[in-house]
């Protein structure tokens, strides 16, 4: 893998918009998309007329219950009569959308790109969980009637066994993120909880309890990405995209070691190389690792090389990843606190880093000075790793 690091145009993020994250929203998917898109344009000081290309993303069509979801939300996303792309790698989509926005601008094809993630999970009932049935292999896995949580529980159990972590150590991540989310205006389930609350919540698949998991959510998030010359005209404080990375593993998740996320590590190495970062554990100031489950944040911290394998859980205990810690992670509140509208959740993480790097995060602003930041998302059966590195 030799990514070409000589891009035609340097890429900046100059605006962001977000809707409330809700368990059930009254707005339709396209209305959610429009709310986020128009807000992002306004914050960048642009109108839709200025936009050259649009990149959208949304997870499986079965959630919204509408096929061709890319086309369905296209008008709300501002993509009518414009080159529009929909990208999709399951949960990894969230960070893959700005990754795709990057190559639209970096190649010189477009100068001003609107990127948008939308998800409305609530239409599927009694529970969207059953929709996940269709991600499993129909011959070798589906006959066992798997539940999506099984696979995460298996990965978490393996991580615990390999690294010597206990459930109470891992629950600290949920406590931290839900607390961080108290300051996020979009947050769905912010809370001041304790480790005991997590351990005493409903047991779903040992070792996973209800509060170890992010909730079913509706919402949309949008960003405006432009080339350097445009960004310089629009703002004094653009946020630069220094590197992107994305890789995919095979679907045979039960044929590999689950305690370390190789799918992410390869993507991270690609992004760091592009960004010229050699020692991410020292050079990154703030991170938004993907946290649909609490152990997943630890897993991803290690995959992003912000901690050594099997050491992230020890650092959480020391408060290393708190908002006032050495390397704040998920200062937004993450998916565990703000919510997990799948494709929109990853964009929310990138938007958070954008606000952090502009010192606009308000009460959520991390204590230390920030220069470089990284976010990731992961998707499918332990397969897709997508990474973005930003700086100010």
């Amino acid at each position: 893998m030799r990514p070409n690091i000589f891009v035609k145009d340097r890429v900046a993020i100059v605006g962001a918009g977000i809707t409330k994250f809700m368990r059930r929203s009254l707005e339709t998917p396209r209305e959610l998309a429009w709310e986020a898109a128009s807000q992002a344009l306004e914050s960048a000081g642009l109108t839709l007329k200025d936009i050259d290309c649009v990149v959208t993303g949304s997870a499986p069509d079965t959630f919204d219950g509408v096929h061709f979801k890319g086309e369905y939300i296209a008008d709300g996303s501002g993509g009518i009569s414009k080159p529009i792309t929909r990208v999709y790698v399951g949960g990894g989509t969230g960070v893959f959308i700005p990754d795709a926005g990057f190559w639209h601008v970096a190649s010189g094809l477009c100068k001003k790109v609107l990127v948008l993630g939308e998800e409305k999970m609530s239409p599927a009932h009694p529970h969207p969980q059953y929709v996940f049935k269709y991600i499993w292999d129909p011959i070798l896995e589906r006959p066992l009637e798997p539940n999506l949580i099984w696979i995460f529980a298996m990965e978490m159990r393996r991580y615990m066994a390999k690294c010597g972590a206990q459930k109470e150590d891992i629950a600290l991540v949920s406590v931290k993120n839900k607390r961080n989310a108290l300051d996020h205006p979009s947050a769905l389930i912010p809370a001041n909880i304790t480790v005991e609350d997590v351990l005493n919540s409903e047991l779903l698949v040992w070792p996973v309890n209800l509060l170890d998991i992010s909730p079913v959510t509706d919402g949309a998030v949008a960003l405006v990405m432009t080339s350097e010359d445009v960004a310089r005209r629009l703002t004094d404080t653009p946020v630069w995209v220094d590197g992107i990375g994305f890789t995919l593993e095979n679907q045979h998740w039960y044929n590999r070691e689950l305690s370390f996320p190789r799918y992410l590590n390869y993507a991270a190495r690609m992004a760091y190389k592009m960004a010229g970062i050699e020692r991410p554990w020292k050079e990154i100031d703030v991170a938004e690792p993907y946290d649909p489950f609490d152990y997943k944040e630890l897993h991803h911290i290690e995959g992003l090389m912000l901690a050594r394998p099997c050491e992230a859980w020890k650092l959480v205990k020391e408060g290393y990843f708190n908002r006032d810690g050495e390397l704040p992670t998920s200062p937004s509140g993450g998916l565990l606190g703000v919510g997990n509208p799948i494709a929109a959740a990853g964009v929310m993480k990138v938007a958070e880093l954008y606000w952090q790097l502009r010192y606009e995060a308000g009460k959520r602003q991390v204590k230390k000075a920030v220069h470089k930041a990284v976010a990731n998302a992961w998707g499918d059966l332990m397969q897709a790793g997508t990474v973005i590195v930003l700086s100010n």
Partner: protein
Amino acid sequence: MEEVPGIGLKSSEMYSLIGLLEDRPKARYDFSAGPTVSKFLLGLKEGKILGKKCPRCGRIFVPPRSYCEWCHVATSEWVEVPQTGIIHTAVVSYISAKRQRLEKPEVVGIVRLDVPGYRDKEYEFAGLFHRICIDPKLVVTGEAIGMRVKVRWKPKEERKASILDIECFEPVR
């Protein structure tokens, strides 16, 4: 950015929405297993676990693949592999696929089979995802991880060339 747009609903409001339409897709699917996995399933019916070997790198894949994903060449030789292995990871499920509570919790996990050609701590391995017939307590204490197990077959007349021909993995005594 203090106020963000969005109107959240309660679950009771959700089902009394104006213009509410309930729909249930009535799609049915018939999946083919493909030539290689079909033969693997016939092997299960005979009480055998079959793997397939890549002629270039020599990896034995279980479950078998038609091609080696690393060398991108066709796999060639069929190999019968041992029916024993160790538990890579295991969990206790209290909920069904539809997220209803189960009366009796179920243990499922990944078994790393004793297939030759893989080093001890290699990232990739040959293995299967299946039910595991052990006491759920062993999963919680951690004794289950690394435990030696073997296949428990369904009675021969009940086997249908399906992954369910394996009833579960049980401890080697």
